[in-house]
């Protein structure tokens, strides 16, 4: 694997760059360093942000000067890797999805565009494991890797003004889930009743960088059952 580059992102930022490709092996090194740095607990490190192929470390240079931070990072990088059983080291999170209908208005387009039936699109989409390379864009938005190229499709020519939260979409060779209602140009194939970003939950972010996502097709009955459970939980939290 290539040499690690240490780049300057202002006097309070260090970018540790592992390569220039979207590649699970490169990304695994990013997450490994993020975890090692968190465990090391250096005073002066404010937070670190894993992305596809680099880690941005934000630090207070008056507490921890760059001349001390860089050798600390190099020391963490030189620790031999003990491969975790699960590979990336993250959790596997299953997202129930109601595909098609009003929740997935572009499912038929994805099928037509790729010469598949809608059932085949659902089967292919729900049979892969997707790596959460990073989160960004909006709070809780996962950049997922691992979608079959058989489902690839261009974005909408004109983005929708409002995409409901929980919408599952495809853009190019990527798939993703909208955690918040927002404008968006992805082709929507379904919706999950689970909340990816919920401040009232004990854990505000359902997914973490390095997790693995699997989509499971559910019918309408099961979708509404999930939604009811989420609402009851929210009601109980408000009542406390």
């Amino acid at each position, binding site marked *: 694997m290539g040499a690690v580059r240490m*780049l*300057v*992102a*202002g*006097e*309070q*930022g260090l*970018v540790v*760059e592992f390569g*220039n*490709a*979207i590649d699970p092996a490169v990304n695994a090194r990013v997450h490994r360093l*993020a975890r090692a740095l968190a465990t090391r607990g250096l005073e002066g490190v*404010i*937070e*670190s*942000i*894993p*992305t*596809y*192929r*680099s*880690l*941005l470390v*934000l630090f207070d*240079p*008056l507490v921890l*000067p*760059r001349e001390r931070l860089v050798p600390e990072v190099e020391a963490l990088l030189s620790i031999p890797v003990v491969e975790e059983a699960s590979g990336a080291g993250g959790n596997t999170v299953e997202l129930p999805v109601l595909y098609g209908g009003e929740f997935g208005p572009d499912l038929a387009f994805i099928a037509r565009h790729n010469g598949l039936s809608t059932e085949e699109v659902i089967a292919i989409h729900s049979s892969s494991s997707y790596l959460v390379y*990073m*989160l*960004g*864009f*909006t*709070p*809780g*938005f996962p*950049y997922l890797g691992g979608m079959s190229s058989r489902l690839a499709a261009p974005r909408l020519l004109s983005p929708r003004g409002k995409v409901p939260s929980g919408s599952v979409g495809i853009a190019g060779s990527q798939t993703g889930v909208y*955690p*918040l209602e927002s404008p968006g140009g992805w082709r929507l194939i379904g919706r999950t009743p689970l909340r990816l*970003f919920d*401040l009232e939950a004990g854990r*505000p*972010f359902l997914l*973490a*960088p390095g997790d693995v996502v699997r989509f499971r097709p559910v019918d309408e009955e099961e979708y509404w059952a999930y939604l009811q459970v989420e609402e009851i939980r929210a009601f109980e939290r408000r009542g406390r």
Partner: protein
Amino acid sequence: MIAVLASGFLTTVQDEGRRGYRAFGMPWAGAMDRYALAVANLLAGNPPGAAVLEMTLSGGSLRFEEAAYAALCGADMGAALEGAPAGNWVAFPIASGATLSFGTAARGCRAYLAVLGGIDAPVVLGSRSTYTRAGVGGFGGRALAGGDTLRIGPAPAVGRFSPRRSLPAALVPPCGGDVRLRVLAGPQEDMFASDGIATFFSSAYTVTDRNDRMGYRLEGPAIRHNGEADIITDALAPGAVQVPGDGMPIVMMADCQTSGGYAKIGTVIGPDLRLLAQSRRGDSVHFLHCPEEEAITALREERAAYAAIKERFPDVGGGG
């Protein structure tokens, strides 16, 4: 309690921002002008990062339903307490029932109102800051509107005889107008042609109307890339200067998204970012190449100023 009679153009509750969640896509938010935030709080007798009101371009009108001790810093919006000029970079007592009203900033962009005890908004993910795009924090996750009421946090009792305090003129920074921003090159300066880097550091750029808490889009001579303008999406933080394919720089600010896909030519140093936060459409911006040691010195001077102000203005005690 503070009753919002009129909100001004865009008024939000802000503090030092929300640290620790950028990895989940959650921006820091927090005050755009960190110096004005800290000084307003210190003058009011608070810790430097307490929650304040950040007013943008114009400030509306507030009625205090209880006696308070307040400080004003940042852009001068011609504040008046019961019709009498309140001044700027000052702290003063406010009697119960009094109205503090603001006009429009003649120059500069953002004014800060701190009250002893802080603005009492719920702490969300470690901060009281408002991030309006996700409806998080502050007052219901949104900008204030007429009819809202704000609570003041617990504070020592203040009386009408609490002293008026003014920041010494030497510590009052420039606010608004044309700015010079010191920049550390990188992290992707190697994606720019050498004449592109020269253009960036030698040209005047103008603040466009596309400027907000997320970022400032500037206009001026196009900055030429070596090849592609796009990178594999990586992390962003306030101060980063992104240059998309059109060659026009965008400086990321307090609410900036945590990731982005354009090459970053440089990063505005922390202590200078407040200068841009006080600029507005039509103001001109120059970028100055800065060695890292100079940035560290500027940061150290900023912290020393806070310490000096804190020493000069001890906490406001029992007052009346």
